[in-house]
Each structure stands twice: as structure tokens, then as C-alpha cells.
């Protein structure tokens, strides 16, 4: 090998961006095509520096836009090798066209999405608008709550995405700044352990196999298009979750760190539960513990896998809960909110008729404070006590001005 391994301490102090960059280094990506955008830039900067320092062998293509970044990734992935990139927000929005093309062509690409608000008005801070924008794109979506997750989920993303039964691209989400720029202790894998977990890239339908030429990116009209889209959806619905679970299991054996498709915290006997994503999960867990000290049986459900949507796992995690709050960190712009709708969908046909209310919070990096969550849990308990939702179904948390609520 024409590159050097890196000696890591068992625990390194890394922010989410550097943790992701280190994971990419350890996975030995063949081609990274990237374009800078705050707050994901340090991932590709980190990768570029590893290359400049001789810790990676591969091609780093610094392109002229995020659209070109994903276009280059698609060309490289179709050629037959390990491919990754990173982006955020407007860059993600510019990539959207190509996201559908990558998944439709069944190309395993790992995209680190450092979540950030979408303009207008322009904002560089974290919310989940970009994550939500990608949710129908046919990609697998993992959600990290902290730098450790951002590191670990990259390995899992490659392992699942490149599996020949899956062959679907995957996003690893982390919150802009709150995760990406906040240094925490990260338990590391050695280079050999990490690469051994992900394994060598196994090409499939690769353009560079000159003895088996392939045509990628065909046109299908009304006589074929539906079947291809149905196939992709079928594979997302039936093949991905078992592979993710197997990867989580393998990863636990390797690292001792256990991941779950839905991350439940204090849910066994919970009366009230908050369901959310990103760094908010960790805040909510802290508040739930405090609420329990006050006699409210509070729990937290975090989504670890957003797509495919863990329909049954969510229903299972929320079984027996009396009041649930969904926390959407993206402006629903005229609807109840993605989490509200999808959780409602997952619960509607279960015997449980939990009281469901939705909250919109944290847009453009606005803090979700513990005080917000305390009053939210109190509202849920009030709903339980009243036997009905006592608040409007959609409330905004932490926005200035008169109380904003709908439905």
C-alpha cells in the first residue's frame, strides 16, 4: 500500500466533521468529488489533508458545484469503486436532482449531510430542512446525535450501501455546528479494525469492466418506469432493514457500541414520550430523566434510521405510551410536519390511540433548551390527565412574538 496508517488514541477529541473525515480515511475511499459548504466543509478539507499527508490513496476531485460533486460521484460509483462526499443545506438542495439519479441507478455512495437550514432567509446553522428535502430521494438515511455516531455510522453506511443485495446510496446526517463543530470524546477503531469491518469494495455492473460493457441511466417511459421505481421501493422496504440490523450487530461485536434502528430511552413504562432526531435526542434524554425525578414517566424515542422509515419499530417503541410529542426541526410550510404525519401513520392502525401532538422547533439553529422540553413534557402529562390533547396539534417552540400554534 502506498499510504501510511494512522495511530489513533483509544479516545480522540473530535468534532463531528473530523470524526466523519477520519471514518472516510479509514474506509479508504477511491474517489471523493466534493464542493465546500458550511458547515460540512471540514469533512472534505480533512479528507484533502489526509491525502496531502499520504494517509489515503485515491482521487480527490474538487469540482465547481455540489451538483457536479454528486454527478462526479455517480460517474465514479458507476465506474466501480468506493465513493463518498459531504454537503449541507443549499448544496444539498442543488444536489437533489442527482440524488434521485444515484439511487435510481442503484449506486452505493455515502453522503455525509451536515444538516443546515434552507434559505431564504439565508442561514448557516443547523436544522433538518435539508434532511427532509432528501427523504423521498430513494437514499438510506442514518441520523447521528453526536460525533461518536457520525464516526460509527459512516462505517455502517458503507457496509449496508455496498451490499450487493442493497446497492442503494446512504446519507449520514449530523446536526450542523451542534455536532459538526462540537468536539467530544470519540472512541476510535484502529485503521485495520475499521477497514476490516467495511471490507474491500466489491464492484457490480462496473463501467470499467471492459469485457462486460454496461449501459447506465437509461430512459424508461410508461411501459417500464413504474416497475423500476417499484423495484427500488421494494428493496428499500424489504432488504435494507435486515442488513442494517446485521451491520449494527456486527458493529456492536467489534466496538461494543450498540445501535438500534429506533433508539428508545426509558420507554419501557413511559406514559409520555418525545420523538425527535439529531442532538435534540440527547437533550431530551437528560430532561426525561429529570422529569422522572418529578414523577412524570417520561421517555425519548430517537430515529436512527429515517429512510427506510422504521414503521413497525416506531409503533413497537411507542406501545402503551399515552401521549407523544413529535419534534420537527424543519418548517412544515403548510402541513403538520413530517414526523407528526409519519408517526401518526405508524400508530393509526395499532390498538393504541396515544394522544399525538406536534412541535416545530430549532429552525436556523435556534436552541432547544431544557426548559422548552420541561414544559413540553408537562403539556404531555396534562394531555394524559385530561384524556385528550389540550393544546393545538401544532405548536412552535422558541420563536419570538405571540404564541404560534395551529390545528
Amino acid at each position, binding site marked *: 500500500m502506498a499510504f501510511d496508517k494512522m495511530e489513533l488514541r483509544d479516545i480522540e477529541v473530535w468534532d463531528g466533521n473530523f470524526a466523519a473525515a477520519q471514518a472516510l480515511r479509514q474506509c479508504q475511499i477511491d474517489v471523493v468529488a466534493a464542493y465546500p459548504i458550511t458547515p460540512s466543509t471540514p469533512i472534505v478539507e480533512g479528507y484533502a489533508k489526509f491525502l496531502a499527508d499520504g494517509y489515503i490513496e485515491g482521487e480527490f476531485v474538487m469540482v465547481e458545484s455540489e451538483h457536479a460533486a454528486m454527478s462526479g460521484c455517480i460517474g465514479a460509483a458507476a465506474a466501480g469503486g468506493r465513493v463518498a462526499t459531504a454537503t449541507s443545506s443549499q448544496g444539498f438542495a442543488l444536489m437533489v436532482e442527482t440524488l434521485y439519479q444515484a439511487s435510481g441507478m*442503484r449506486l452505493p455512495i455515502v453522503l455525509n449531510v451536515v444538516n443546515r437550514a434552507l434559505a431564504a432567509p439565508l442561514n448557516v446553522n443547523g436544522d433538518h430542512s435539508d434532511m427532509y428535502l432528501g427523504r423521498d430521494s430513494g437514499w438510506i438515511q442514518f441520523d447521528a446525535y453526536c460525533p461518536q455516531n457520525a464516526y460509527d455510522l459512516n462505517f455502517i453506511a458503507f457496509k449496508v450501501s455496498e451490499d450487493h443485495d442493497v*446497492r442503494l446510496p446512504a446519507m449520514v446526517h449530523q446536526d450542523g455546528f451542534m455536532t459538526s463543530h462540537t468536539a467530544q470524546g470519540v472512541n476510535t477503531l484502529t485503521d485495520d479494525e475499521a477497514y476490516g469491518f467495511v471490507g474491500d469494495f466489491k464492484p457490480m455492473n462496473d463501467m470499467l469492466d471492459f469485457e462486460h460493457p454496461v449501459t447506465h441511466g437509461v430512459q424508461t417511459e410508461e411501459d417500464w418506469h413504474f416497475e423500476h421505481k417499484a423495484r427500488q421501493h421494494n428493496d428499500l422496504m424489504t432488504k435494507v432493514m435486515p442488513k442494517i440490523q446485521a451491520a449494527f450487530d456486527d458493529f456492536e461485536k467489534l466496538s461494543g457500541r450498540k445501535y438500534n434502528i429506533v433508539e428508545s430511552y426509558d420507554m419501557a413504562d413511559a406514559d409520555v414520550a418525545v420523538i425527535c432526531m439529531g442532538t435534540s435526542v440527547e437533550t431530551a434524554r437528560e430532561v426525561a430523566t429529570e422529569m422522572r425525578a418529578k414523577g412524570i414517566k417520561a421517555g425519548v424515542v430517537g430515529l436512527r434510521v429515517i429512510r427506510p422509515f422504521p414503521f413497525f419499530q416506531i409503533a413497537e417503541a411507542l406501545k402503551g405510551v399515552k401521549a407523544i410529542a413529535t419534534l420537527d426541526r424543519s418548517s412544515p410550510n403548510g402541513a403538520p410536519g413530517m414526523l407528526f404525519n409519519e408517526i401518526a401513520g405508524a400508530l393509526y392502525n395499532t390498538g393504541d390511540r396515544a394522544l399525538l401532538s406536534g412541535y416545530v422547533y430549532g429552525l436556523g439553529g435556534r436552541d432547544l433548551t431544557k426548559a422548552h422540553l420541561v414544559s413540553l413534557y408537562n403539556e404531555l402529562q396534562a394531555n394524559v390527565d385530561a384524556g385528550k390533547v389540550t393544546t393545538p396539534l401544532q405548536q412552535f417552540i422558541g420563536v419570538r412574538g405571540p404564541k404560534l400554534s395551529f390545528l
Partner: protein
Amino acid sequence: MANKGWNEFEIGAMLRTFDGKIDDIAGTRQEDRAYSENSSFVASVADWRIEKPIFSKDFCIDCQFCWIYCPDMSIIARDKKMIGVDMDHCKGCGICVEVCPTNPKSLLMFPEQADEETELAQWPAKDEEKK
């Protein structure tokens, strides 16, 4: 290809041109290639034609203008000789006739229903006024 169900084809709408392995495509003539059912080579556009070219080899000088300028890979050239027209892939554009330099032309357009032997039997003679 028959209209298959959603579970019956390769993922990603990927198509393979050939069945199995092919070592040197540029060095393998069409008749020696194992085209898959997905190569348009196995399809036909013969029904697009209103007129068809008929080739008379009597005057052909094998200049290969018709070969190079055929948009549909339908002029069959082997060993530097023009040997005929691939009527499955010819769309009847008539370029081959236009670029044919012989006198009389070695390719002429006729209605699709025209009988080849009849037309060859009454091929025009050399136009003495033309250089």
C-alpha cells in the same frame, strides 16, 4: 424483450449489451458478437422506411462514402468492399444514394414495396452528359 414484472430485471435499469464476456469489441465484427436481447442491434426499424435503397454492385468502386456517411450502421462493408445494406437497421434516409459518386449510381432509392430483382434488371445506364 417481453414486458417483465418489477421483480424480473436487473436493478438500476442497467442494461448489458452482450451475453457473457467479450474480449475485444473493436476487433470483433457484428456477426461474431453475442448481442444480448437488450442491444438495439437485435431490433429493427425497417418499418420506418417509406423508401429503401437498392444496391447494384456492377458500378460500385468501393469508395466507402456510403459506409462512412450512413447514420444507421447499415452499409455492410467487409474487407474494404461494400457488400450490401442491412435492411433491419436502414431507416431509408437516402444519404447513401446522395453521396454515391459512381455513374450511374450504385445505390438508388425505391418505394419500400419495390422488387429488388426487377429494379436491378432495369438499372439506369451511364449518364454520358455527366462527367
